[in-house]
């Protein structure tokens, strides 16, 4: 433990803005959603009707899980079913940032030579993230206990805290496996995404045992405000303990900065193609682009299947079908589901775009841009080499997503010819908004390089607008800031030309501003 507390203070110092921000936001999200629902649906009858209609739609079950009870608190937690995933994402990124990323930059070595115990880095990162998870849990407990039964509040708080603790341990284990932080992040996020999909699959099919395999489902298995069961909390503790043990075991066996796999030798000479900034950028980006593309191909299949499940479930329910017919028919409902899924995935793909752009900043601060810019390669060419990936990469990811989702959806409904082009088009239609985010990151990189990482904050804000805007009654003007607000809802909606043109134009202007800014500024030393 020697030195762990000193490192805890270091982590708190480095994350003094971002850490409190996500802890408070995620802690307050559930009660916000609950209050919004309590405000919209007053009285038992309305709440019951809302609960019944939500639970009857497997599309919602796929996204958020089953509705457990009709009271406002249970419904609010259900509606916030995605928030534990965000908590998991935040903690695992934090753990990797303070363990593997530190080792990769060599800073860990500097600290390692002081009086630190071998595992101080890992321990301190786990202490901070566990504490953060507990604080989120406490906020949930306190905010719900003020208005609703305290048992339910406790179960809800434990669910959030437990998810955080488990995914902190996932991050800790992933950080031991690869030499570079990017790889560790990829593994941990894949585990998180897998857990989310498993929950969706378990909740929408007969194989409900699948959900039990997913920590993302456990908060609901504690049934807050729906006849609490306490023992699933033991699952969190046991899994987190097991993962941590594995992480410490691996950390004890490997050298500082080494991964699990021994580094392999590369070629002694470069392939003829590796001859310019574009070839280098492709080398640097291709691994993560491939991972994202594959990930979204799988997501497309799963969500397509969920849309089909929704269709057939609705087809069996005569009364629901009648009700839906008035709303535009069952196919309109599954279109809505596909549109909602594409909306969320569009924001996720923006995450890829932002990351691809910020790769430039990482290259610059790691002093790897310097030797390239000291050759005849121009600054514009170097920037463009990364921006090509940031602009065309999301197109590839969305195309593959559209293909796999459209194909699965089309096969299920027996009409590939109609659905595939519609879904593919709807998926690609997210691009202008994705480009706006890439462009925001580029502009920050070029003009305010120290604030480049704020692009993530912008992305997070737009995500929250999309998730909460309607519930919170945010003013129109605020919602309009997000490019995703302006995208027509596709498939099913009316594909207007103007929003795409305007968003693409904004993206082009911001991209140009970023490139121009970088041409004129100092390269970081």
């Amino acid at each position, binding site marked *: 433990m020697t030195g762990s507390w000193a490192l805890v203070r270091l982590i708190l110092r480095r994350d003094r803005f971002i850490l409190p921000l996500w802890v408070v936001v995620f802690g307050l999200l559930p009660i916000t959603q609950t209050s919004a629902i309590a405000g919209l649906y007053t009285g038992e009858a309305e709440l019951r009707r809302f609960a019944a209609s939500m639970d009857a739609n497997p599309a919602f079950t796929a996204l958020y899980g089953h509705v457990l009870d009709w009271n406002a608190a249970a419904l609010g937690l259900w509606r916030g079913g995605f928030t534990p995933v965000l908590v998991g994402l935040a903690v695992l990124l934090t753990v990797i940032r303070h363990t593997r990323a530190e080792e990769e930059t060599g800073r860990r070595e500097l600290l390692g030579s002081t009086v630190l115990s071998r595992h101080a880095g890992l321990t301190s990162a786990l202490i901070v993230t566990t504490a953060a998870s507990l604080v989120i849990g406490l906020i949930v407990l306190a905010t719900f206990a003020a208005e609703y039964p305290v048992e339910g509040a406790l179960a809800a708080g434990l669910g959030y805290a437990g998810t955080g603790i488990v995914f902190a341990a996932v991050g800790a284990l992933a950080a031991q496996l690869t030499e570079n932080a990017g790889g560790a992040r990829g593994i941990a996020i894949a585990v998180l995404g897998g857990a989310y999909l498993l929950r969706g699959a378990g909740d929408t099919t007969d194989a409900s045992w699948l959900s039990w395999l997913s920590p993302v489902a456990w908060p609901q298995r504690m049934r807050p405000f729906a006849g609490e069961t306490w023992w699933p909390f033991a699952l969190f503790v046991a899994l987190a303990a097991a993962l941590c043990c594995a992480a410490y075991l691996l950390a004890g066996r490997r050298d500082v900065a080494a991964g699990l796999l021994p580094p392999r030798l590369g070629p002694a000479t470069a392939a003829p193609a590796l001859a310019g900034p574009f070839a280098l950028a492709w080398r640097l980006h291709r691994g993560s682009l491939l991972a994202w593309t594959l990930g979204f191909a799988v997501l497309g299949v799963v969500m397509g299947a969920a849309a089909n499940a929704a269709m057939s479930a609705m087809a069996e329910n005569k009364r629901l079908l009648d009700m839906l017919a008035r709303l535009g028919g069952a196919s309109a409902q599954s279109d809505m589901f596909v549109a909602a899924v594409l909306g969320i995935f569009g924001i996720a793909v923006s995450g890829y775009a932002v990351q691809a752009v910020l790769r430039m900043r990482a290259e610059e601060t*790691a002093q790897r841009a310097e030797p390239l810019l000291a*050759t005849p390669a121009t600054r514009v060419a170097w920037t463009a080499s990364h921006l090509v990936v940031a602009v065309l990469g999301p197109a590839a990811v969305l195309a593959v997503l559209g293909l796999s989702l459209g194909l699965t959806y089309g096969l299920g409904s027996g009409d590939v010819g109609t659905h595939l082009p519609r879904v593919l088009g709807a998926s690609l239609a997210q691009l202008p908004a994705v480009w706006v985010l890439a462009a925001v990151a580029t502009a920050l990189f070029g003009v305010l390089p120290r604030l480049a990482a704020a692009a993530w904050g912008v992305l997070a804000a737009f995500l929250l607008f999309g998730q909460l805007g309607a519930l919170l009654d945010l003013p129109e003007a605020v919602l309009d800031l997000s490019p995703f607000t302006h995208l027509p809802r596709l498939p099913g909606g009316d594909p207007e030309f103007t929003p795409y043109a305007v968003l693409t134009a904004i993206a082009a202007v911001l991209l140009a501003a970023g490139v121009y800014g970088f041409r004129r500024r*100092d390269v970081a030393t």
Partner: protein
Amino acid sequence: MTNVITVSGLSKSFGRTRALDGLNLQVRAGEVHGFLGPNGAGKSTTIRVLLGLLRADSGTVRLLGGDPWKDAVELHRRLAYVPGDVTLWPNLSGGEVIDLLGRLRGGLDPRRRAELIERFELDPRKKGRAYSKGNRQKVALVAALASDAELLLLDEPTSGLDPLMEAVFTDCVREVKEQGRTVLLSSHILAEVEKLCDRVSIIRDGRTVETGTLDELRHLTRTSITAELASPVNGLAGVHDLRVDGSRVSFQVDTDRLDEVLKHLSASGVRSLTSRPPTLEELFMRHYRDESLAGAR
């Protein structure tokens, strides 16, 4: 002789840190120019301005007849750079980095590349992180030395090299010089500077405090003298580090006052006298440490 680099009155601030404060530097064509100064003096900052990576706040900078900020791309065809702290891409092998940088500069001679890799005993198949500090440095050195660039900007190129490899580096720079190419060599290793450099510039706190050939600089420094005298000497003015032990005195004297002081000594009857010319080390120490000197110029 024509100047390859002419810097005058160059200033550069980072926020409130004044990294360069009216720096002057002249590097002549075909010479190896030593660039010296204590940590944080501004050597790397100067080199980055020369590369057009940083924009000068004020002053004029000419490099190979062009403006390093405006004509960066054309100038970069004619120069090669070795950074002080080489970081490589984790998933590229050393050989790939050498080829990539070489091709960006317009191609490199495969024979020279192979020869340099052998002389520096570099394994080009290892990947980024697998290299030790010295080996990372070698990757950048091979890439720069294998090029045909007429100007080499080397920022502490031997940091991390073992003595054997330092010797290889020294040979390589000599060959570069024989080919008539120009080298700006920032370094903390005085022996290396003494072996390689025709002229040196010493900077401190972002300003040039001394520039010239090594002989010229030696001339500016102090001679150490120890003498046995017949009678105690008095009024030895203008000497440094004076120690009197009975009839024995030892002190240092500025070279331009040597004659005057010796006359004064002989008046007291000199029994024995040893004098030692200044070492470069002492010269640098004085420039690195002496507050008043930096201020006076």
